């Protein structure tokens, strides 16, 4: 069952939604904030928007604050729904170059 975050009443009645659905693009973990025909993917690892468009500034502050306030709930929900790609499994970073000389020892 899809998860719908409870948003402050006036924004919900104006058609704002925040959802994690049963089939999403799996990587990176995110919640989708929707308003009418527009959608914004908000990353649950980085707390950053994942896409350049539409402009995240179109989202009312109250909606974004409510989303951030329930971040731990959203993260738990993602991990329950997508155990194959949990929040803690960060995108692997490129390994650091090995030191060639151990002169400091």
């Amino acid at each position: 069952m899809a998860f719908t975050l409870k948003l402050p009443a006036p924004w919900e009645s104006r058609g704002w939604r925040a959802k994690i659905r049963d089939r999403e693009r799996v990587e990176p973990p995110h919640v989708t904030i929707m308003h009418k025909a527009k959608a914004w993917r908000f990353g649950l690892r980085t707390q950053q928007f994942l896409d350049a468009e539409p402009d995240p500034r179109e989202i009312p502050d109250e909606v974004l604050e409510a989303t951030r306030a329930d971040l731990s709930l959203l993260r738990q929900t993602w991990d329950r729904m997508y155990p194959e790609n949990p929040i803690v499994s960060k995108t692997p970073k490129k390994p650091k170059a090995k030191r060639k000389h151990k002169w400091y020892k």
Partner: protein
Amino acid sequence: MVQVNDQLLLVEPRGHASGKFQRLKASRLHFQSDVRAAMAQRRVYSLWIAPSEPAMDLLLGTLPRRPRGDDRRLLSFERARGDAQNLVHAHFRFVVSAGDGVQLLPIAELIDVLGADNRADLFVGGVVLAAQSALLLYRGNLEPITIPLDWFASRPGSPGPDVSKFAVTDYGQTVRLGDYEAATDAILYEFDEDYRIRAKRQRIEKDESIGGSIRRLRLQKGLRQGDFPGVTAKEIARIELGKVKKPHRKTLQKIANRTGVPVDQIQSY
């Protein structure tokens, strides 16, 4: 004479205007001369809407004798009677008819989707093809896309998809099958390479490496690193980490075989 300068064309005979479509920013075609003028214009594609029986009658009565092969698409709310349906298909590349069992978005949402710049990335409706175990979905530009029903996999602890309760919701952004919901974005990402390439360009955080693509592809398909016959989990991990910059062609072929994605499309993920 109505100026026809838009891709959206609403057939609305005088005296039969539908209040429901008042908000839609489309060129209105009231008379046969309007329809003829619109037919004569060349566009990348045109999306025609016939919301009523009189609208269908006006349209059918004005179709030219010989189709020019332009890319016209028709959304109708009344199925053309009898043989006229063949005539419609002769003149329109894609025809979506609510009278053919297609479930459309509620009118208020439909108008927003048809008027949206990103209408091609949203669904306006669809129909379950039980015999083919597939879901036929229509995008806002009326292009069809067919999704196998088994793609809608259950999530742990959640009810599975109920195809008897199919609907498109959230202004075309969600496909609902009972309590189960799938993101339109996820469907298009999986089944439309052009969409996937555009979506990749949109991402703020870019990891253009082949390892990043393989990791996203693997996770999208719900696979673990050890799920690739003939390639060890360690090797997959090394590729994803960027320790292997250019995986061997044979390795890529094995990844392609397991994921069902052609080698040349792996990097689109």
